[in-house]
């Protein structure tokens, strides 16, 4: 009897679980609705400001409300389905699950094109040629955006197709370095403008009495990794630009993802043969090994903040959105200011190029920070849903909507011409700063999420002494090539003329 009861209960739970997975997600976003992932632009659960959340996200909520009044379409947010926002690995896992349960958002976020090898994106080129009915007098949607965004690798896939619509650009550099101005002045430290000057300032700060952590890395750079912002935005650009004479195959001044794939497969990024690669990885190794103090990974943000307030930290890397939090830090008894995180150039290595600098006012072309894809699994075989997704993206990219989202969010600049930026950047004097032009070329890692993860694991192993340099280089080269080959296969890239 007990056994029969146990079997019946088990069957009940299995059926319940099956129904939950197969129907619960799939049926929840239905007719007249549009499932949307706008990353950190999505509304917060509460629309009321509270001491714990003084800046609730309401712009997208209000835009969606108005959109429903205008078109009848209701927006359903991915944040209600626990969409992770921290890193690409977790995002990819979430999207895979959503695709499997047939409940993939029609508009998605995946750091631009980071999941292109999965074939999830709809090519948007033809839609960008259409007029945007939500922008007065517009005859071509593409024209409302800043011109340079269409060359950004976060917008173009490896075949050169536009697969994401940009809304937010980096505020010049991706982050800022906040520094103890009093400490700098008292100890004769000057604001660094190159990576070498920054490491020298860190060395000098180490000698200041009481300083425990001269430099705190960006909170998003949580461990030893080449996928860190410090590697992407500060260490690699000068080296990538130095290689452009060999990697910019069409000599158009921009090295595309396809050109990087070709260069990897033609052995141009193999650190055994490539001096730029060897020196760049050496610089990254030194950063983690000697520039950052031992144990930096296990220090919490709260502890770093206490140390900053008690003069034990000289500099900390943080987003511009943090500026009014720092202004309101009543436990700080010293003046602070910001400088642009410097880039490694020829004074760090003869294999790194000196890059020009520009202010935002002088037309610095910021890289794309947030861009949104139309997700193929959600809209294929559903022309109506595809049209709805495009229509909402058009609505979202009107200058008025972009202004509302960008000013509230505070993380970056608008990708659309004529839209407003967060005015707190004026208070920080940020528009007058000079930024190094870094968008000539990205530095390639694994292309594919899994290969990049393996490269990062090997790099961490090298820094921790579990691998030697030669073992890391071998692993890196094999993972990089495997990733490049997968890209060629999955993206159907034409390799005619490649020496591979």
């Amino acid at each position, binding site marked *: 009897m007990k056994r029969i009861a146990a079997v019946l209960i088990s069957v009940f739970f299995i059926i319940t679980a099956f129904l939950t997975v197969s129907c619960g997600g799939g049926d929840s976003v239905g007719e007249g609705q549009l499932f949307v992932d706008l990353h950190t632009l999505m509304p917060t659960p509460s629309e*009321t*400001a*509270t*001491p714990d959340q*003084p*800046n609730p996200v*309401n*712009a997208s909520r*209000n*835009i969606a*409300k*108005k959109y429903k009044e205008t078109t009848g379409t209701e927006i359903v947010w991915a944040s209600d389905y626990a969409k992770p926002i921290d890193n690409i690995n977790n995002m990819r896992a979430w999207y895979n699950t959503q695709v499997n349960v047939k409940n993939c958002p029609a508009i998605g976020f995946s750091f631009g094109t980071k999941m292109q090898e999965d074939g999830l994106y709809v090519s948007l080129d033809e839609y960008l040629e259409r007029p945007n009915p939500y922008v007065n007098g517009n005859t071509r949607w593409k024209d409302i955006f800043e011109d340079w965004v269409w060359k950004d690798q976060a917008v173009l896939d490896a075949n050169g197709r536009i697969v994401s619509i940009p809304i937010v650009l980096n505020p010049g550099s991706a982050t800022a370095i906040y520094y103890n101005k009093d400490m700098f002045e008292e100890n004769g430290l000057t604001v660094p403008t190159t990576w070498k000057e920054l490491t020298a300032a860190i060395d000098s700060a180490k000698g200041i009495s009481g300083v425990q952590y001269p430099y705190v890395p960006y909170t998003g750079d949580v461990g030893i990794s080449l996928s860190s912002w410090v590697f992407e935005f500060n260490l690699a650009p000068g080296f990538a630009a130095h290689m452009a004479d060999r990697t910019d195959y069409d000599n158009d001044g921009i090295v595309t993802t396809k050109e990087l794939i070709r260069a990897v497969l033609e052995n141009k990024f193999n650190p055994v043969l490539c001096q730029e690669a060897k020196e760049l990885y050496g610089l990254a190794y030194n950063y983690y090994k000697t520039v950052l103090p031992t144990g930096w990974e296990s220090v919490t943000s709260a502890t770093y903040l206490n140390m900053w307030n008690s003069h034990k930290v000289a500099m900390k890397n943080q987003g511009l959105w943090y500026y*009014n*939090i720092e*202004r*309101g*830090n*009543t436990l700080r008894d010293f003046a602070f200011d910001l400088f642009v995180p410097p880039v490694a150039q020829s004074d760090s290595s003869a294999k790194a190029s000196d890059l020009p600098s520009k202010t935002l006012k002088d037309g610095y072309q910021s890289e794309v920070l947030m861009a949104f894809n139309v997700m193929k699994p959600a809209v294929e075989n559903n022309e109506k849903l595809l049209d709805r997704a495009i229509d909402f993206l058009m609505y979202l990219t009107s200058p*008025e*909507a972009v*202004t*509302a989202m960008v*000013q*509230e969010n505070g993380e970056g600049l608008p990708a659309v011409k004529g839209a*407003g930026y*967060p*005015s*707190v950047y*004026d*208070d920080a004097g940020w528009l007058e700063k000079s930024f190094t032009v870094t968008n000539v070329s990205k530095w390639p890692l694994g292309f594919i999420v899994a290969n990049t993860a393996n490269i990062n694991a090997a790099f961490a192993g090298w820094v921790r002494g579990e691998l030697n340099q030669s073992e890391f280089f071998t692993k890196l080269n094999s993972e990089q090539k495997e990733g490049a080959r997968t890209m060629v296969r999955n993206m159907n890239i034409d390799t005619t003329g490649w020496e591979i």
Partner: protein
Amino acid sequence: MGTQKSKRKIGVKYIIAAIIIVVFSAFYIFDVVWAKTYDVQAVYVSDKTPVASNSERVEIVVRVTHFGKPMAKHEIFVLPSAGSMLAYTALTDETGQAVFYYIPYTASAFTPASDVTLRIRDQSNSVFWEINANTEIVLRLRQQG
């Protein structure tokens, strides 16, 4: 015998619980009364009807006094119902004053200009509980010309 002992134990527990409740209630009442002895005021507002634009700044000077005496180094927190602050917290100076800057949102078809309430509280006046002396002001945001 055993039942009597356990009844006595329960009785003692109730008495201890009651004492705790009374003590904490007394602390709470003290803090409520104590908070009323502080005066938090917005003594200057540069523009009570600012334009609903993110580039505007409204200067607000808050003063804290206790029995008429200015209170220095009190932490003041300002929370707007919409828009943001250049800094949400600031310390009062020796005149009991702290300066804040309110940043309005940009009015649009999605969010028209409307009234914004700024809740201002002194986070340093309570002794036992977080019972803050507070005040609020209303700014009437207007649509850009």
